[in-house]
C-alpha cells in the first residue's frame, strides 16, 4: 500500500479510452472556430475506465481523515463529525429545497435557520446572528466591515487602525488589511495574555477596534479579558472575537458577556460540520444590538402571523454569499446543538479541556510548555527535547506520521519557537490519547538516541521527506513531463 501512486498522466497510453461514443447517426456540424481549443491536446491523459477508478480510489484510500485516525491539529478542532448530521442534511425537504423557493414553501428550512440564529446567540450571549459568511475568515471580514460601517454611521471616519495581538491567527491582520485598515500589533506578556501596557500605548482615537481570540492561540484563557474590553471601549473601539477556539468555553463563558461586540462561529470546528476538504465551512457571526443593523443579510425573522421570513438589516453591509450561506452546514450544526442540548455542549468543552490538559501533563517533561499554565482546549509545547541535538519540531512532526498519527500544528503561534500545537478535542478516548502520548514519548527518546531516524522521517509513508524549500523556490504548478522525469531521476539518486 505504501508505494508512490503515479500521476494520472504517467499512467496514460495513446489509444486507450474510458468511454466509447455511439456511432454518429446525424450530420456532422463543426463548432464555431472561436470555440475550438488551439493548444495541443495530444498529451491529454488516455486511460480505460477501470484504470481511472483504481487510480482515484487508491489515492482516496491514502487520505488521512478524522474517520481513520487521531487528528490533533491545533487551532482546527478536528473533532469527529457524527453521521446523523449527514442523514439530517440529506432529508429531501432540506437537500432538494431551492434557494429561490417562495418563503411560504420553505418554512421548515427557514425555521431551522431562525432557530440556529437563536441558539448561537444564546450560546454566545449576543443579540443578533447572521448565517451568511462561508467560513471563519469571511466572518472576520463581515465583522470588520461592520465595525467600519458602525463608525462611519456615527460620523467618526478617522478610525483606521485595527489592533491585533502578536499571537493572532494570520487571518486577523489579513482581514484588517482587506478592509483597508492599518494593522497595529499588540504584544503578549509572559503569562501569554495581552500586554496591557502595550495595549494602552496603542489605543487612540484612530482605533477601529481590536481582534482577539479567547482562549488565545497559546490555548490559554485571556486573564485580563474584562480589562481589555474596557480599555478598547474606553478608546471608542470595538472588540472582535475570533471564534476559532470557541470549543473551550461552550456553556461556561459567553463572549457577549465578556465584553466582545462581535464574533464569528466556526460551525465547521465547534459545531462539527465536516472540515478540511470535506467542507464547505460556515462562519456565522453574532453581535450586540448596537451592531445588529449592519449585519450581512438576509437573516431570518418571525412575522407577526408566526411565519418565518427573510429580511435584510436596515444598514446592512450587504451580502457576502449567494443565497443563504452554506445551508447544508446549517442543518448539521442545528442537528449537533439539538442532539447535545445545553448540558451536552458544556460537557463538550469540559472534556476538550480535560483531554488537552491530560496530553499537556503527560508530555511537558519532554516537550517544554510555551507558558507554564493550565491550558484550555489545546496546548502549545516546544519541540525542544532535553538532551536532543539538532532535532527540530519539523522532524518530530514528520516522525509522528510513521507512528500513524496526523501531526499537530507546527511553528504556530509565531511567538513560540519550535511550536507544537496540540488540540485533541473531546471526541477522543483515553486509549487514543495514551497511544499518542506513548508515540510522542518514544519519539523524544529517538531524538536523543537515534536523531537520524527523525531527520529521515517519514520512512513508512508513500513519499519520503519533501523538499519544502525547493517546492517553494521552484514550484511545478502543472503537469510537466520533463520536470517530473527530472525530479524522479534526482530522487532516485
Amino acid at each position, binding site marked *: 500500500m505504501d508505494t508512490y501512486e503515479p500521476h494520472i498522466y504517467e499512467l496514460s497510453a495513446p489509444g486507450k479510452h474510458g468511454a466509447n461514443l455511439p456511432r454518429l447517426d446525424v450530420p456532422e456540424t463543426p463548432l464555431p472556430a472561436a470555440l475550438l481549443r488551439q493548444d495541443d491536446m495530444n498529451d491529454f491523459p488516455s486511460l480505460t475506465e477501470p484504470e481511472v477508478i483504481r487510480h482515484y480510489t487508491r489515492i482516496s484510500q491514502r487520505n488521512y481523515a478524522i474517520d481513520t485516525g487521531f487528528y490533533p491539529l491545533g487551532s482546527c478542532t478536528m473533532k469527529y463529525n457524527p453521521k446523523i448530521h449527514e442523514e439530517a442534511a440529506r432529508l429531501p425537504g432540506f437537500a432538494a429545497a431551492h434557494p429561490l423557493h417562495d418563503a411560504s414553501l420553505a418554512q421548515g428550512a427557514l425555521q431551522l435557520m431562525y432557530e440556529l440564529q437563536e441558539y448561537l446567540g444564546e450560546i454566545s450571549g449576543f443579540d443578533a446572528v447572521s448565517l451568511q459568511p462561508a467560513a471563519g475568515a469571511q466572518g472576520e471580514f463581515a465583522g470588520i466591515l461592520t465595525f467600519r460601517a458602525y463608525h462611519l454611521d456615527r460620523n467618526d471616519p478617522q478610525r483606521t487602525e485595527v489592533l491585533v495581538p502578536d499571537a493572532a491567527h*494570520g487571518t486577523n491582520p489579513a482581514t484588517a488589511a482587506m478592509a483597508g485598515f492599518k494593522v497595529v500589533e499588540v504584544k503578549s506578556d509572559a503569562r501569554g495574555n495581552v500586554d496591557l501596557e502595550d495595549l494602552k500605548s496603542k489605543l487612540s482615537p484612530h482605533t477601529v477596534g481590536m481582534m482577539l481570540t479567547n482562549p488565545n492561540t497559546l490555548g490559554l484563557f485571556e486573564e485580563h479579558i474584562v480589562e481589555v474590553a474596557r480599555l478598547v471601549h474606553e478608546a471608542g473601539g470595538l472588540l472582535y472575537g475570533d471564534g476559532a477556539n470557541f470549543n473551550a468555553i461552550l456553556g461556561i463563558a459567553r463572549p457577549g458577556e465578556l465584553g466582545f461586540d462581535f464574533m464569528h462561529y466556526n460551525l465547521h470546528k465547534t459545531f462539527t460540520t465536516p472540515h478540511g476538504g470535506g467542507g464547505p465551512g460556515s462562519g456565522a457571526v453574532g453581535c450586540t444590538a448596537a451592531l445588529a443593523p449592519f449585519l450581512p443579510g438576509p437573516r431570518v425573522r418571525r412575522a407577526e402571523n408566526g411565519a418565518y421570513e427573510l429580511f435584510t438589516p436596515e444598514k446592512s453591509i450587504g451580502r457576502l454569499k449567494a443565497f443563504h450561506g452554506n445551508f447544508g452546514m446549517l442543518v448539521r450544526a442545528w442537528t449537533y446543538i439539538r442532539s447535545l442540548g445545553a448540558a451536552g455542549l458544556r460537557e463538550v468543552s469540559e472534556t476538550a479541556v480535560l483531554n488537552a490538559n491530560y496530553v499537556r501533563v503527560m508530555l511537558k517533561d519532554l516537550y517544554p510548555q510555551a507558558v507554564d499554565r493550565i491550558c484550555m482546549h489545546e496546548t502549545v509545547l516546544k519541540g525542544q527535547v532535553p538532551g536532543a541535538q539538532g532535532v527540530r519540531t519539523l522532524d518530530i512532526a514528520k516522525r509522528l506520521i510513521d507512528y500513524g498519527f496526523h501531526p499537530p500544528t507546527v*511553528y504556530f503561534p*509565531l511567538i513560540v*519557537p519550535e511550536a507544537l500545537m496540540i488540540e485533541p478535542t473531546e471526541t477522543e478516548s483515553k486509549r487514543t490519547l495514551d497511544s499518542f502520548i506513548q508515540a510522542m514519548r518514544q519519539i523524544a527518546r529517538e531524538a536523543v538516541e537515534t536523531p537520524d531516524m527523525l531527520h529521515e522521517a517519514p520512512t513508512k509513508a508513500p513519499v519520503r521527506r519533501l523538499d*519544502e*524549500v525547493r517546492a*517553494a*523556490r521552484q514550484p511545478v504548478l502543472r503537469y510537466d513531463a520533463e520536470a517530473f522525469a527530472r525530479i524522479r531521476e534526482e530522487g532516485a539518486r
Partner: protein
Amino acid sequence: MSTIPADLRYSKSDEWVRVEGDEVVIGITDYAQEQLGDIVYLELPQVGATFAPGESFGVIESVKASSDLYAPVGGEVTAVNSALEHDQQPINSDPYGAGWLVRMRPSGEEEELMDAAAYAAYLEGRSH
C-alpha cells in the same frame, strides 16, 4: 553562535544598518536568517519609496513563517537588491554581504539602534 560584525548597528527586529557615504545599506542579521530558516520569498519596496523608522518596508518568507521587514532608519529607498528576486539563497548564506536588501538615503530619524555588543547581549537575553 551567530555572527555579529562589529562595524554595524542593529535593530530590535533584527535588521542591520551599514553607513556607506551619505547612504545606508540594510539587511537582516545572521541570527534572523537562522531563526527563519531557508528563505523562499522576498517582497522589497520600489526605489523612491519613503519609510518612517519602524515602518514595514517589505516581507520576507521562509518555509516556517512570513515576517515583515522593519526600517531601522527612516529615509528614501535608492536601490534594492534585485538579484534576490529570483534567488534568495544569499540572505541565508551571506546575510551581511550579498544578502543585503535595500539602500536608503537616511532622513535622520532612527529607531533605537544597538552596537554589536549590545545586540549580542540582546540576543543572549532573548534565548532564555
